[in-house]
């Protein structure tokens, strides 16, 4: 126990000495706070909080004012959209990343564990999925499934698990060859315990790191789909949706810059936060880097 506490102290010290890790954590906490307190920051739209309230019936953008600090576009309050969009971003990122990871881990470990033709077949499937450009595939699938964020999520999950599957398969195959696995076998350890104690800890952490790194990129992709008009429903509190409103005003950036800058900044910072956190996790998970 004492060991664990001193370990934790060592870790947190190391973590705090690492500037980028702090920045990542700070940014992420900032987003979490915003997501939790969204109703207090931007208020709550009575019927459906995820619907950005209409504040004007003209589609002309309105520059930021005291009442609408990020301006208005398409009649929607950008500030509300950005704040509540944080919740959407977390939902999107976490759900897609974890579902894709679960599928990937399942397929990857089945593939590695059984080997032989099972492996061959699964990996061919992975190859086929990977050969379809991600964005194109997602576009086609959302077009077929129809509008709505859940459809976007589904599309991204369906086309997002392959790299995890490959990663975990490769890791397991590699870990299985490590001599410490043989050594455990030679000591008489049961196969199941070998997997739990020796193989999983050495294979799962890279996946967790990869997952956190990809959360940001999923959000960007979903935003991209919304921007193309095949993502969330119009008026949904989502960063991509706000961006999509600015599509028509692209040539008049002097009048619509705020519709790009505010959600855009949020997105960039969100991606950055997850990337930095992913980096920090990598350091934490590896005892070789703890000194």
């Amino acid at each position, binding site marked *: 126990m004492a060991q664990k506490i001193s370990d934790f102290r060592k870790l947190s010290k190391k973590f705090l000495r690492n500037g980028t890790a702090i920045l990542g954590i700070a940014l992420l906490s900032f987003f979490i706070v915003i997501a939790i307190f969204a109703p207090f920051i931007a208020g709550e739209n009575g019927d459906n909080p995820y619907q950005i309230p209409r504040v004007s019936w003209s589609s002309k953008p309105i520059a930021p004012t005291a009442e609408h600090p990020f301006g208005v576009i398409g009649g929607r309050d950008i500030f509300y959209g950005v704040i509540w969009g944080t919740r959407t971003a977390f939902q999107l990122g976490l759900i897609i990343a974890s579902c894709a990871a679960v599928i990937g881990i399942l397929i990857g470990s089945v593939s590695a564990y059984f080997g032989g033709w099972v492996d061959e077949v699964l990996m061919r499937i992975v190859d086929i999925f990977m050969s379809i450009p991600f964005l194109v595939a997602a576009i086609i699938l959302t077009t077929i499934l129809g509008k709505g964020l859940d459809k976007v999520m589904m599309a991204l999950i369906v086309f997002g698990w392959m790299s995890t599957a490959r990663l975990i398969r490769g890791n397991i195959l590699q870990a299985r060859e490590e001599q*410490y696995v043989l050594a455990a076998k030679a000591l008489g350890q049961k196969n199941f315990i070998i997997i739990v104690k020796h193989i999983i800890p050495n294979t799962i952490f890279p996946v967790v790191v990869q997952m956190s790194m990809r959360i940001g990129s999923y959000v960007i992709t979903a935003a991209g789909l919304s921007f193309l008009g095949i993502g969330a429903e119009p008026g949904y509190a989502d960063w991509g949706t706000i961006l999509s409103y600015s599509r028509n005003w692209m040539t008049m950036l002097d009048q619509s810059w705020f519709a790009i800058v505010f959600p855009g900044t949020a997105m960039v910072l969100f991606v950055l936060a997850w990337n930095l956190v992913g980096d920090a996790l990598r350091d934490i998970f590896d005892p070789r880097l703890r000194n």
Partner: protein
Amino acid sequence: MQNNTLLKVNNLVKYFPVKAGVFRKTIAQVKAVDDVSFEVKKGETVGLVGESGCGKTTAGMSILRLYEPTAGQIILDGKDTSYYFLSRRKAKKFLKKQYTEKFEKMKQKYSSEDQVIKNLNDEFNKQAAKDYFENPHKFIEKMMDMRIKGRSEFRRKAQMIFQDPYSSLNPRHRVKTIVGEGAKINELVENKDELKAMIEDILKKVGLSVDHMSRFPHEFSGGQRQRIGIARALILKPELIVCDEAVSALDVSIQAQILNLLNSLQKEFNLTFLFIAHDLAVVKHISDRVAVMYLGKIVEYTTKDQLFEKPLHPYTVALMSAIPNPDPENKSHRIILEGDVPSPINPPSGCPFHPRCPIAKDVCSKEVPQFKEIEEGHKVACLFPGKLKR
């Protein structure tokens, strides 16, 4: 059975299938170990030498059942352990083939049970035949009952020290977890305090300090890591330890430390070593007897002194002459072998060494030389033993 034999390996075979295509059809076999027989006496060190890829590791791993052998009998401490790690069905099949069918067939051939026993060539199988003929059904039943219990006993008695001091320790585990794992699995201790005392004791024995217990492997040098690996094996108080290139990855000065340590531990615990290495000088230093392997087969097996004074297999002779001698005034006269080691997928016909052998004659490519005793305690597999001179 001579009770000073600890390990007896009879006709060990291990093939690795080479698979290809979507349905993973087996298209060829890597004949990594092909009919290897030898025995190791209690308390002695047997060296196993040979070039890279000749099957040393595969042999060691098969003996410990880290690889399931394709065929062969592995007798440890007077017990046939060959079927211990097979599934129930396969174990039954093995016993049927190894004992029932064999003995019944012999009985038909020799017509009497006593004749069968007389014609079996090793003590273990003689005794087995006796027991079998007394009550065939009970004999097999008893063997099957041994299976599960035998596993943990086998694991306790036979351990391994690995070559790579980096990959052989789990980087996420602390020294005490690594060293204590075996004791926990095999329930050698009752509580945490006992375990701790045991780990401390063993760490001291291998020359590490108690402060090292809570550290991770990466905090140690190669030599220290190898000590951790030795402690992990030693905690089970094993009788047989297979050392697979246990010092090959270490620096000269560290190698000497580990060799000395193994030597003193052997005396203290009356250990038996199967010492796998490619460095003949190291093997000579530590072994009592030496087996030389070439392309999946043992080509020469005898005492160390015999082997180094009077090697009989041309491959052994060439191997010895090839070692650079660390004495500038006494440079070795090298016999240079032509070509490379052939592939074990497609071993040459006849004597596997004939394409490289300096004294090969025509028959060598046709006739497979028997591995037989040429002089007292000196087995060789060559049609012209002793003909290649240094």
